[in-house]
């Protein structure tokens, strides 16, 4: 009896595990491609980069000290960035949290045209033409969105198109903990 029961139980247990994992992938609570960022809870990488609007000027991330802010990595070449653009615009308006855009490996003229046409959700948007700052942030795809605390630590990261629902679930509670937007 046992020799038939053991494999049957093992198969059922394995089946249950697969079903559980597939179910979570199906409803979006498990992303197998997600890579947990080692930056969470650590000091946010600092950077100085030229502005997309005016490359002669540079933006220094130290100027954000004492504020909760969002870093959004995007590019005009990235379809999911286009997908999240409306959400970025409304979230930056509604929440009052400043959005700093990092335009990753992009053409500056193209980026200016894109923002003029679709609207600009960013308080500041800088150009990372060589992709070095993106590597410091551990970026492996676009879009990626980070939340930085008042004391300059990375609170959260989201890879993929940001939506109001994702914001409400992942970012909004952390912003409240920080005492809201500046």
């Amino acid at each position, binding site marked *: 009896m046992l020799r038939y029961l053991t494999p049957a139980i093992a198969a059922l247990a394995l089946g249950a595990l697969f079903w559980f994992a597939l179910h979570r992938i199906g409803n979006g609570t498990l992303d197998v491609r997600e890579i947990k960022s080692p930056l969470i809870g650590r000091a946010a990488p600092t950077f100085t980069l030229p502005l997309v609007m005016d490359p002669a000027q540079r933006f220094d991330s130290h100027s954000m000290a004492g504020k909760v802010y969002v870093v959004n990595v995007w590019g005009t070449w990235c379809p999911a960035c286009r997908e999240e653009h409306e959400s970025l615009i409304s979230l930056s308006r509604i929440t009052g949290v400043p959005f700093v855009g990092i335009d990753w490996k992009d053409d500056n003229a193209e980026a200016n045209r894109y923002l003029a046409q679709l609207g600009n959700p960013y308080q500041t948007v800088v150009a990372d033409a060589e992709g*070095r700052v993106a590597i410091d942030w*551990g970026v492996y795809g676009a879009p990626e969105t980070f939340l930085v605390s008042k004391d300059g630590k990375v609170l959260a990261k989201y890879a993929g198109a940001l939506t109001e629902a994702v914001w409400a679930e992942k970012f909004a509670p952390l912003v409240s903990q920080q005492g809201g937007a500046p």
Partner: protein
Amino acid sequence: MIRTQRWSALAAGLLLCVGAFAIDTEAAFPDAVRQARYEHLTQELRCLVCQNQSIADSNASLAGDLRREVKEMIAAGKSDDDIKAFLTARYGDFVLYEPPLSARTVLLWAAPGLLVLLTVGAATRVILRRSKAPIDADPEEPV
């Protein structure tokens, strides 16, 4: 004669393929020592975009940027451990094809050994039981 020519052409083609997996078209370093380190490191680092390719094999833009970082760090005299530490601080252990032994990966590292032990144990039990049984009355079969 023709047959041997075909075989040698095939062998030569296969040998060429070995080198063809890397994306770089020219050597990163003029000296063999640093070039070997560069090739070894880029083979050991995972391309985060494609996830099943090393940064040496991938033509993704990020893989190119990571190869540039590795090349610059080797040129700057950084050790292999420094370079790996730089990348894991940003991308986590996932960037390494060979994850370090830690509480989280101990099962991963121990699994092959455990599976061998389990198989050997089960096989030994079955063999011992069968060797003790009388030849004509196999206890496994219903009479």
